């Protein structure tokens, strides 16, 4: 009996379909949605934070009402949703924060969300331990209120790092909410609960309170540096629809404008995961600048914690500001003058003033000495004793300066800056990618009858040797101590995170190749030459492989899973009847 004559069996796994079909099928499986499942794919909840004369800040409302937040989370949200200290903020202010999730919760459609996560660029993947809060804060004089001011925040709590999208949503809904209250939020939640799932790479139409937001979530397959702008239809009536050019990007140039001359040093500091604090006059500036810093090493993922807006009330305040340990590898955005003292011992401090639209660029070039930073009133600049490894690229500075003189639009300046960072990061990472790829065992060392071979160990010295011939000098004209930069980077959390991801991908690739090798063997023939015990053992092992491949989405060739299933069926059919029954039923562990 030949293997090919066997019917594939009913239990074909999803992975044997084309990836696209598999995704649709998985979505379909999960889309027998419960109420609020669609909502949960985008938002955890919406909070209203107000000021109570006796209690201080308090979460006044949570929508949908069944949403769960622990007391600790609520406390964090309260303080993070209001300006810290008397930083003014009269009128409307938008900013974002990030906070630790204090207990794990599962959503009923997590399988679908995992699937979607897989296709995201690494820097946009969800972090299971953190939430984002997107805030629209209003503070206006109101004599009818005891406090003399109306102060309220509408806050979207989400796992998704889509600042541009959620800021746009809040800009559209918050002003109306402050006038129309509860029924308005009920309607907002109902709208979001009708949104399509956040599938990367598709143009999504999100109806929200009378308009459509058109967005596209990037995928990991997009060419880096390209922005695939959602196509505009002929009408640009914002009362009907708004097409957002990005879901997650911030205006890089505007953010870096106050510390213009130091962008390359800041890139190094972020790349190396150095402790960094941004002191800003208001939460909107601190949060945008922190996000700009984190994104400047894209497509590398910034792997340490970062807090676009951090206050003295934060539950991690003690942990992060203690003097008994060296400052942690984090980026904090703060506004409270108190931090100037608390974080005096931090090695790198970015001080920014009000972000203006770039009409003038600060003149001073020198890095400031840390001891000159006394209060928040100190001048904008970077306060550090850090000596950059790489020589400064004068060309990008000149190019941007020229742009300012010629009144080049800020968006265009940001595009230039983003491309500059991208090229710099790529020049830096390509030698590492190349070396790590060489750790992969040779194809011929993969034997179906042995476990998959191991990756070779990462050796710093071997890697350094490769730099002589195939270092960043191939793609970057920047001179300087690249070797020193690599040595430092290899000790950083960003390297750890990056290498872990690569190792996992490569191990999976090995598993997949091994699986393919197994499928190309005549397993039935093998089993006939071995004892029944060995055959049963093989069947169980194969079944486990199949499950693993499905669970981990191993990158196997399309028909591999089908083939393997046919092998299993064929072997089982050749066994005695009683064993057949048992093996057909046996699920595997």
């Amino acid at each position: 009996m030949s293997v090919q004559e066997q019917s594939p069996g009913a239990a074909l796994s999803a992975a044997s379909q084309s990836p696209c079909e598999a995704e649709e099928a998985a979505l379909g499986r999960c889309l027998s949605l419960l109420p609020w499942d669609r909502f949960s794919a985008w938002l955890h909840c919406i909070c209203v934070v107000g000021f109570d004369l006796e209690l201080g800040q308090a979460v006044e409302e949570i929508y949908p009402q069944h949403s769960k937040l622990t007391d600790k989370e609520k406390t964090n949200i309260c303080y993070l949703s209001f300006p810290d200290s008397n930083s003014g903020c009269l009128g409307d202010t938008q900013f974002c924060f990030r906070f630790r999730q204090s207990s794990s919760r599962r959503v009923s459609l997590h399988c679908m969300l995992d699937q979607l996560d897989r296709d995201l660029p690494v820097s946009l993947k969800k972090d299971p331990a953190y939430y984002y809060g997107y805030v629209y804060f209003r503070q206006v004089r109101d004599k009818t209120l005891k406090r003399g001011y109306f102060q309220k925040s509408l806050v979207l709590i989400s796992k998704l790092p889509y600042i541009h999208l959620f800021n746009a949503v809040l800009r559209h809904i918050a002003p109306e909410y402050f006038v129309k209250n509860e029924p308005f939020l009920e309607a907002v939640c109902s709208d979001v609960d009708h949104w399509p799932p956040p599938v990367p790479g598709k143009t999504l139409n999100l109806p929200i309170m009378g308009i459509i937001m058109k967005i596209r979530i990037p995928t990991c397959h997009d060419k880096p540096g390209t922005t695939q702008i959602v196509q505009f239809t002929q009408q640009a009536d914002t009362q009907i629809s708004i097409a957002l050019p990005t879901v997650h990007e911030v205006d890089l140039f505007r953010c870096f404008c106050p510390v213009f001359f130091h962008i390359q040093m800041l890139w190094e500091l972020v790349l190396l995961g150095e402790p960094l604090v941004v002191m800003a006059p208001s939460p909107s500036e601190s949060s945008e600048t922190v996000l700009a810093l984190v994104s400047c090493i894209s497509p590398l993922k910034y792997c340490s914690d970062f807090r676009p807006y951090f206050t003295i009330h934060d539950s991690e305040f003690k942990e992060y500001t203690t003097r008994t340990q060296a400052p942690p590898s984090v980026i904090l955005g703060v506004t409270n003058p108190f931090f100037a003292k608390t974080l005096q011992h931090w090695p790198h401090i970015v001080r920014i003033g009000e972000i203006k639209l770039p009409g003038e660029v600060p003149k001073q070039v020198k890095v400031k000495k840390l001891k000159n930073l006394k209060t928040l009133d100190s001048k904008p600049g970077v306060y550090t004793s850090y000596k950059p490894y790489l020589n400064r690229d004068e060309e990008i500075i000149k190019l941007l300066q020229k742009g300012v003189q010629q009144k080049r639009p800020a968006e265009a300046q940001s595009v230039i800056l983003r491309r500059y960072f991208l090229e710099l990061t790529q020049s830096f990472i390509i030698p590492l990618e190349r070396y790590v790829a060489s750790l992969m065992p040779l194809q011929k060392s993969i034997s179906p009858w042995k476990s998959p071979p191991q990756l070779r160990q990462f050796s710093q010295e071997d890697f350094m040797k490769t730099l002589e011939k195939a270092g960043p000098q191939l793609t970057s004209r920047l001179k300087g101590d690249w070797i020193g930069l690599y040595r430092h980077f290899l000790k950083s959390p960003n390297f750890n995170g990056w290498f872990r991801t690569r190792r996992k991908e490569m191990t999976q690739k090995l598993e997949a190749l091994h699986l393919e090798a197994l499928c190309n063997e005549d397993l039935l023939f093998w089993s006939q030459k071995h004892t029944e015990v060995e055959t049963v053992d093989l069947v169980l092992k194969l079944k486990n492989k199949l499950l693993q491949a499905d669970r981990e989405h191993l990158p196997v060739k399309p028909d591999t899973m089908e083939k393997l299933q046919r092998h299993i069926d064929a072997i089982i059919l050749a066994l005695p009847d009683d064993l057949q029954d048992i093996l057909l039923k046996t699920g595997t562990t």
Partner: protein
Amino acid sequence: MALRELKVCLLGDTGVGKSSIVWRFVEDSFDPNINPTIGASFMTKTVQYQNELHKFLIWDTAGQERFRALAPMYYRGSAAAIIVYDITKEETFSTLKNWVKELRQHGPPNIVVAIAGNKCDLNDVREVMEKDAKDYADSIHAIFVETSAKNAININELFIEISHRIPSTDSNPPSSGKGFKLRRQPSVRQRSCC
């Protein structure tokens, strides 16, 4: 073929069948036990009209009183409003007149208004005479049809008529055209209240 997105909102008292009309138009189905709408629900349908494709962006608003104040977000920027009443309930026709007034004061200047007397399958319990409604519609230059979402009467016709009345974009900007004016002078466009 050019694709035009046309925002359309449905207004009217609770229970007159706004959502049923939309369901019939978009899905060609009818559910007698449909839940009351929260805020508004949104659906789209694209139809061909002459040499254009009209993509209707349909905002089906809630009729319940507590959502009343949200209506401006939905009729803002709308090319057309379908105001629905129930021919078996006189008071829903009065509500309709209030909607017309509100649109006249706060709606977009050239909005096409369509009046739909729904549930015309229940002729024996009728409270609003077809002629009265027709006369009223004519007096404000509105489209008028009696519809039955249940029996699929005049639903497609209603939207075809809307397509017909929407000013064409070929040469004119959308603001000038043969849209029916609710007021003589197109006043300054209502800004959002924020």
